[in-house]
């Protein structure tokens, strides 16, 4: 009788699912605003000013939203990239996994520390 080893994939899959859903619900609008409308001046200048963004990031809800977006987008993406590496012939293993999930961890930590440093 074969012994099946329980995979820890659900942890990463849930993060993948959360990030995929959040990026679907808000991703295009976020890119449009921060990457195109504001820089091109199509929204009133000062929409993303330091003062307003600081206030937003210091607000508990704003901080949580920014953190959720950065963290979930990152963990969603690296999980897919890890799987895609396999599709391209780079087989699953500790080194590819470390590169992928490690990057997400770095992004999460930098984001978290920055948001904490900004304070409340």
């Amino acid at each position, binding site marked *: 009788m074969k012994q099946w080893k329980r995979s820890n994939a659900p942890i990463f899959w849930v993060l993948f699912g959360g990030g995929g859903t959040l*990026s679907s*619900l808000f*991703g*295009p609008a976020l890119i*449009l605003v921060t990457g195109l409308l504001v820089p091109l001046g199509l*929204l009133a200048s000062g929409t993303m000013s330091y003062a307003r*963004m600081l206030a937003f990031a210091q607000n508990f809800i704003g901080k949580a939203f920014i953190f959720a977006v*950065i963290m979930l987008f990152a963990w969603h993406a690296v999980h897919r990239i890890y799987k895609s590496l396999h599709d391209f012939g780079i087989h699953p293993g500790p080194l590819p996994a470390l590169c992928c999930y490690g*990057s997400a961890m770095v992004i999460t930590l930098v*984001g978290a520390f920055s948001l904490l440093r900004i304070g409340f």
Partner: protein
Amino acid sequence: MSKLTAGTANRKPFKRPMAGWYKRDPFFVRYMWREVTALAVLLYAIVLMVGVLRLSQGEAAFNGWLAALGSPLSIVFHLVLLVAMVYHVYTWFEVMPKTMPLLYAGGKRVADATIMRGGIVAAIVTNLALLALVWGMRP
């Protein structure tokens, strides 16, 4: 007796290579493009990460990040990200119904295509809502 087993001695199964499998069918090519959109999600997360990092480093640093966003390179980059992100949204709701159990409403099976349409409508609503919020809160 040896005649019974003689057949297996001549077996030499041939394994065909998988290299380049994703080029073999348009279905696979589309799948790979779907997965490539993950890069856009990652790169945007990094852009935002740098943004909050600069925000935590003070006004000068943050204004530097804002200025960089205004460069032509950044504009083109974000246009590409936007296209990729929209394709991600569409393909996300193509796959998402497969994770749901068999649903029935009014005695009839709720088709995956219906769930997909619902998801896309929800995404359009939430994205427009965010745009409306930003517009409504403009200085």
